[in-house]
């Protein structure tokens, strides 16, 4: 059978090994097999950015990857970023700047912003707005999100 495949992947520091359906997306693998439901399935066609996670430190859309393509990779989801009482600097900035309301887009924005901040570059607000163009937020109007990321730089 080749409609299933072996997968070994590290998620939030924990190694997982097993068999997965080949057609399972990384997003559905994280949500339904690992029960890491902080990664949100939005459009499931690569447009909304809600399912963005870090793959070996690079932000990727988990709905545009098969789980089997993450073979050997290191995946970080929002569950691996911080926890109540021990928020990351970025999460704390999202809170202080009111950068979310319903929270559906937030984990995707956090993953994208993590990669942007780790680059060490200092971007203007306009540059950040352009970099975050692949993420849809229906609540905030984006300004608080851009401000939270901007304030975390340097």
């Amino acid at each position: 059978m080749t409609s299933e495949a072996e997968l070994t992947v590290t998620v939030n520091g924990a190694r997982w090994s097993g068999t997965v359906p080949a057609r399972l997306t990384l997003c559905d693998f994280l949500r339904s097999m690992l029960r890491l439901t902080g990664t949100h399935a939005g459009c499931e066609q690569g447009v909304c950015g809600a399912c963005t996670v870090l793959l070996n430190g690079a932000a990727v859309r988990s709905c545009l990857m098969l789980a089997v393509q993450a073979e050997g990779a290191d995946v970080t989801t929002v569950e691996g970023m911080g926890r109540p009482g021990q928020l990351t600097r970025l999460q704390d900035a999202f809170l202080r700047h009111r950068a979310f309301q319903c929270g559906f887009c937030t984990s995707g924005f956090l993953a994208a912003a993590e990669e942007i901040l780790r680059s060490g570059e200092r971007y203007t607000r306009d540059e950040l707005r352009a970099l975050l163009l692949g993420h849809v937020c229906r609540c905030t109007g984006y300004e608080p999100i851009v401000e939270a990321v901007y304030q975390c730089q340097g």
Partner: protein
Amino acid sequence: MKPPPFEYYRPGSLDEAVQLMARYGPDAKILAGGQSLLPMLAMRQARPKHLVDLQRVGELAGIRSADGRLRIGAMVRQREIERDSSVPPLVRCAVRHIGNFEVRNRGTVGGSLSYLDPAAEWPAVALAMEAVIVTASQRGRREIAARDFGLGPHTTALAADEVLVEVLLPAGNAGFGFAEVTRRGVGDFAVAGAVCHGAAVAVFGVGQRPQRLPGVEALVSAGQPADGLAEAAASEIDTTSEYRRRVAAALVVRVLTEAAGRR
């Protein structure tokens, strides 16, 4: 919004990939970075029986110079290309217009060329640079000139059993220009775009596939200044959309002016 079932293969070498394509080619799809194929699978616009994932094919990785040309492996991600200083500045500039950085983290040059979206950057850049596309099959290797590669929307000269191996680009720094117009900022699909590399001019997003503009190229070579060429470009562009024709013609003037400033 879930991919349909398929049989999945993860070849570890080009030989193995080519064997799989010889066996399953007409019913198979190649999975490169997946940034176009995964949405098509999710929307059930593609229902391949077999999916051949090239991720582990080492021969398709890496950027290197060989015989005075730059060779970019088919599985090289756009992000690696835009960051590599050995890549010609035109290519690095054009690649930054592809999708958003998350899409570029996964998307590959081979995927972009073989998907041949009429509005995509890579096919137009390959055409303007007179790139050569190298393929492999059990029948052997083949070099396809970029002008013979793109046949129409999402249609290329790749045979069903062929694997795109690499793209060969000329070395050297010709004057260049690149511009596109989108509906909503950087990262959106181009309504129209233009590329200039040395004496070559191409437009994309306007017709069935990217087009060279030999008439405009001849006027440029004859010393005509760029700002008088909008009419010539407009009359030469093959499109059914008058708006795209006007936008593309204006972009031709823009990229020629840019290129003149870089010579």
